[in-house]
C-alpha cells in the first residue's frame, strides 16, 4: 500500500505513520495466521471462538430441554444425556464465560490504556492456541463417545476409577487443565499490561473501570485456577496410576474433591461476574453522558468481592453433613458478599438518575442485566441460609438461581458489550431494530425459561435427572420451560444474525459512533495494527478519568516494536520495552502442550515425550533473534 518509502515523505506525522505501519505490520508468509501476536487479532479470535462454544453450549441446553419437555421422554438415553449436560456445564463455564471475558480484556485493555500491544504478546498468542486445542479435543471426545459424563463438577467417587470406567474423565481432566492454564496465561498478560502500560498521567486511581475489573478478575484467576488444576491432576492420578487421595477405603476422602473444586468453583463464577460489572460501568457512563457515579466505590466493591469470593465455597456443600457452626460462618460470608455487589448496582442506577441516559441497544441489554441479576442475587442470598438451602440444594431452584446470575449478569452484559464494541472491532454498526427485537425476545424467553424453574425446585424436582415420572406436578412446567428456552435461543440467534449481516453491509461506524470519551474511541475502527499514532499524555489531577488527552509521548524508536512502560502507581514513564514481532513458536508450543495433555489422558508415559517436545519449542521461543536492544536506529518520532 505504501509505495512512497518513508524517506521521501516530508511531513513528520505521515512518515511516522508509515514507519509504525511497517514496524507493527501483521505477520506475512504462508503461516501468517499462526504467527500473529497482535493483541487485537488474538482478542478477536478469543471472542469469536468463545461465541462459537457459546452456540455449542446453547445447542446442548436445547437438547436437554427437549429431553425434559415430557415425562419419561426417550429423546436421549441416559448415557448421552449425562455427556450432554456435563458438556453444557463445562463448555459454558470453561470454554465460553472465562475466555470471552479474557478475549474482550485482551482486545480493549491495551486500547483503553492507549498502548500499542499487550506487554507479553507471544504469551497471549500461546494461550489462545492452548484454549482452542483444549476446546476442540473436548468436542472430538464427545463425537467419539468419550465425552465426560460425571457432571462439570465430577464429584468423586462417581468420577473415580471404579465408577467412571474408561478414559472419559481422564480426557476431561486433561482438557480442564489445558484450558485453565491458558486462562492463567491471559491473566498474567492482562495484569502486567494494566499495571505497567498506563499512559503518563493515568495514575492508578484514574484507570478506566473496565481495566480495573479485568485486573481484579485476573488476580482472582491467578489464585483460583491453580486449585482446580491441582485438583484435576490429583483426580487424574487417582484414575490412571492408582493414587488414593480420594479413595475413602484407603483413608482418602471424597469430600476433599468437593472442597477443592468449589474453592475454585465459587471464585470462578465471580471471575465471570466482575468483568461484566466493568463493561456495564463503561456502557452506562457512555450512554448517560457522564462518568459513572462513585468510581472509587465501584472499584473498592470489586476488590472486596474479589477477596470475599474465596471465603464462601462451602455453601455448595451445606447438605454433606458438615458441622453446624462451620456452615453458619459460610452463611454469613455468602450473604455479606451481596453488599459490595448491591453497592455497584446502586451506583449504576444513581448514574441513570444523574446523567442523561440514551436508551440505545447496549443500554437496553444492561438494564436487562440489572433487572434479572437482582433476582439472581436475591435467590442467591436465600440459598445462603442453611435451613433453606438443605431443602433446595441440588434442585431446579438452584438451576434457576445460577442461570439468573450467569445469563442475567454475564451473557446479557456480554451481549450489551458486543453491541457497544462491535463497531470498534469491525468498523460496522449493528442494526438497532434487530438488536431491540433480539433483546426483548431474549428477555422474555429468559424469564419464561428460568422463573418457573424456581417453582419446579420447590415442587421437589432434583437437578441433573435425564427424565422424571408423570403425576408429580412437573410435566407442564417443564414443557413451558422448553418453550421458553427456544424463545431465548431465537433471541440470541437474532444477535448472531445481526453480527453476520452487519459485517458485510452494516452502516459505516467511523471512529466514535457512540460519542464516548474513553481512549479506545480515539483511534480508527477497526484499529490499525499499531493502534495509536502516539501514546497519549492525560492531564493528571482531574477527578474523573474522562479528561481529553492533552499531549503525546515523543521520542520512540518507531522502527522497532517499542512499548512505553510506566510506574505502577503514578504512571510516570519508566522504560521502553522491546516486544518481539510475529513468531510461530507460540502456536507450536500451544499445539504440543495440548497434544501432550491429550496423550497423557491415554497413557501417562506421554508426559515424558510431550515434555521433551515442549522444551524444544521453548528453546525455539526463547532463542534470541540477534537484534541488539541498545543499538539506536535513525527513525525516532519527533
Amino acid at each position, binding site marked *: 500500500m505504501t509505495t512512497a518509502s518513508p524517506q521521501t515523505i516530508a511531513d513528520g506525522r505521515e512518515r511516522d505513520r508509515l514507519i509504525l505501519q511497517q514496524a507493527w505490520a501483521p505477520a506475512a508468509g504462508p503461516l501468517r495466521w499462526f504467527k500473529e501476536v497482535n493483541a487485537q487479532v488474538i482478542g478477536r479470535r478469543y471472542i469469536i471462538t468463545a461465541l462459537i462454544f457459546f452456540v455449542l453450549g446453547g445447542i446442548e441446553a436445547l437438547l436437554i430441554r427437549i429431553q425434559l419437555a415430557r415425562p419419561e421422554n426417550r429423546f436421549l438415553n441416559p448415557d448421552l444425556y449425562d455427556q450432554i449436560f456435563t458438556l453444557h456445564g463445562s463448555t459454558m463455564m470453561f470454554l465460553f464465560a472465562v475466555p470471552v471475558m479474557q478475549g474482550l480484556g485482551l482486545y480493549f485493555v491495551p486500547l483503553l490504556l492507549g498502548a500499542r500491544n499487550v506487554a507479553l504478546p507471544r504469551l497471549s498468542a500461546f494461550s489462545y492456541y492452548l484454549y482452542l486445542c483444549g476446546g476442540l479435543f473436548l468436542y472430538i471426545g464427545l463425537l467419539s463417545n468419550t465425552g465426560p459424563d460425571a457432571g462439570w463438577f465430577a464429584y468423586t467417587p462417581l468420577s473415580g476409577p471404579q465408577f467412571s470406567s474408561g478414559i472419559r474423565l481422564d480426557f476431561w481432566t486433561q482438557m480442564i487443565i489445558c484450558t485453565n492454564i491458558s486462562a492463567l496465561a491471559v491473566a498474567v498478560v492482562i495484569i*502486567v499490561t494494566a499495571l505497567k502500560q498506563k499512559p503518563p498521567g493515568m495514575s492508578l486511581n484514574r484507570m478506566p473501570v473496565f481495566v480495573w475489573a479485568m485486573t481484579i478478575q485476573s488476580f482472582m484467576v491467578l489464585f483460583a485456577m491453580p486449585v482446580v488444576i491441582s485438583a484435576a491432576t490429583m483426580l487424574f492420578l487417582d484414575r490412571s496410576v492408582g493414587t488414593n487421595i480420594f479413595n475413602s477405603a484407603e483413608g482418602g476422602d471424597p469430600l476433599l474433591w468437593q472442597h477443592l473444586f468449589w474453592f475454585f468453583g465459587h471464585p470462578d463464577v465471580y471471575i465471570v461476574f466482575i468483568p461484566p460489572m466493568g463493561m456495564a460501568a463503561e456502557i452506562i457512563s457512555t450512554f448517560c453522558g457522564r462518568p459513572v457515579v462513585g468510581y472509587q466505590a465501584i472499584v473498592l466493591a470489586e476488590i472486596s468481592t474479589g477477596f470475599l469470593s474465596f471465603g464462601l465455597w462451602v455453601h455448595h456443600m451445606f447438605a454433606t453433613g458438615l458441622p453446624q457452626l462451620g456452615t453458619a460462618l459460610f452463611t454469613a460470608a455468602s450473604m455479606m458478599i451481596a453488599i459490595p455487589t448491591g453497592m455497584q448496582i446502586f451506583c449504576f442506577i444513581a448514574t441513570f438518575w444523574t446523567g442523561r441516559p440514551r436508551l440505545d441497544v447496549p443500554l437496553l441489554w444492561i438494564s436487562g442485566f440489572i433487572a434479572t441479576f437482582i433476582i439472581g442475587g436475591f435467590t442467591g442470598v436465600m440459598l445462603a441460609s442453611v435451613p433453606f438451602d438443605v431443602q433446595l440444594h441440588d434442585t431446579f431452584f438452584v438451576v434457576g438461581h445460577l442461570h439468573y446470575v450467569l445469563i442475567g449478569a454475564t451473557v446479557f452484559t456480554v451481549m450489551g458489550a458486543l453491541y457497544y464494541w462491535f463497531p470498534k472491532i469491525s468498523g460496522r454498526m449493528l442494526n438497532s431494530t434487530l438488536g431491540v427485537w433480539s433483546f426483548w425476545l431474549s428477555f422474555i424467553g429468559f424469564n419464561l425459561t428460568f422463573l418457573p424453574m424456581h417453582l419446579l425446585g420447590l415442587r421437589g424436582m432434583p437437578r441433573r435427572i435425564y427424565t422424571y415420572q408423570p403425576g408429580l406436578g412437573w410435566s407442564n412446567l417443564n414443557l413451558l420451560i422448553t418453550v421458553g428456552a427456544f424463545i431465548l435461543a431465537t433471541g440470541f440467534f437474532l444477535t448472531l444474525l445481526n453480527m453476520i449481516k452487519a459485517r458485510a453491509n452494516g452502516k459505516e461506524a467511523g471512529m466514535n459512533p457512540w460519542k464516548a470519551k474513553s481512549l479506545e474511541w480515539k*483511534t480508527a475502527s477497526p484499529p490499525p495494527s499499531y493502534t495509536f499514532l502516539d501514546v497519549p499524555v492525560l492531564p493528571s489531577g482531574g477527578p474523573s478519568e474522562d479528561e481529553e488527552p492533552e499531549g503525546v509521548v515523543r521520542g520512540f524508536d518507531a522502527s522497532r516494536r517499542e512499548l512505553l512502560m510506566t510506574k505502577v502507581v503514578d504512571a510516570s514513564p519508566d522504560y521502553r520495552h522491546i516486544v518481539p514481532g510475529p513468531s510461530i513458536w507460540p502456536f507450536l508450543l500451544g499445539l504440543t502442550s495440548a497434544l501432550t495433555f491429550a496423550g497423557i489422558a491415554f497413557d501417562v508415559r506421554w508426559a515424558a515425550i510431550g515434555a521433551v517436545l515442549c522444551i524444544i519449542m521453548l528453546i525455539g521461543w526463547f532463542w534470541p533473534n540477534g537484534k541488539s536492544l541498545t543499538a539506536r536506529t535513525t527513525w525516532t518520532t519527533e
Partner: protein
Amino acid sequence: MVLAERKIAYCTNYMDNRMTQHDIDVSNLPTIAFGSRSPLWWAEMLTIMMLSAVVATLIATYLYLRIGFSSWPGPDAVPPSLFLPTICFVVLLIVVAPIYSASKAAQRGERQRSTHGLAITFLLGITFLVLRFSAFNELGVRWYSGVYGSLVWVIMGFHTILTIAATVWTGILLGITLGQKDRERQQMGIQINALYWGFLALSWIPFYVLLFVYPAALMV
C-alpha cells in the same frame, strides 16, 4: 455539550504537529530494565504467585487427609528416612547462592561472572535432580500404597517437575549466553531465573517439614 476543540485532534490521521508543553520526550529512557521496572519481572512474580497457590493447595490437601488418620503416616507405612531428603534440602538452599550472585552480576553488566554463576547453578541443579531421583527410589512407600504414599509421590513429583524445568531453563540461558553476542535480553532472563530458583527453595521448606520431619517425629 460541545467538546472543546483541543489543539490536538487526537486520531490517526492527525496532521499538524505543534509541540505542547505537556508532551513528554522518552528517547532517553533505557531499553533494558531490571527488577520491577521490567514486565518480565512482573510476569515471573505472577507465575510464582500461581505456583504458590498450587503449593498451598497441596499443603491443605496433606493436612486435610492427615486429620482423617488416627495414626500417621498410616497404619502400615514405614517412617521415611531423613538422610537423603535432608541432603536434597541443603543442596537446594545452596543453589540459590550462585544464581543470586549471577543475577546481581548481570545487573551490573559483568558478563563473565553472570555466566560463571549460571554454570554453577546448572551443575548444582543436575546434582540436585540426581539426589532427588535416588531419594524417590529410597522412599519406603509407593504412590498406590495408601494416602501417605500418594501424597509423598504427588508433592515430590510436582516439586521435581518444577526443578527439572528450572534446570533446563538455566541450561538454555547458559547455552545462549555462551554462544551469542547479543546478551542484553538474557541478562534480564538471569534475574528472573534467580527469582524462580528462590521460589523453588522456599516452597520446599514446608514440603520437607510435612513429608519427612513431621512423620518421622510422630513415629519416633
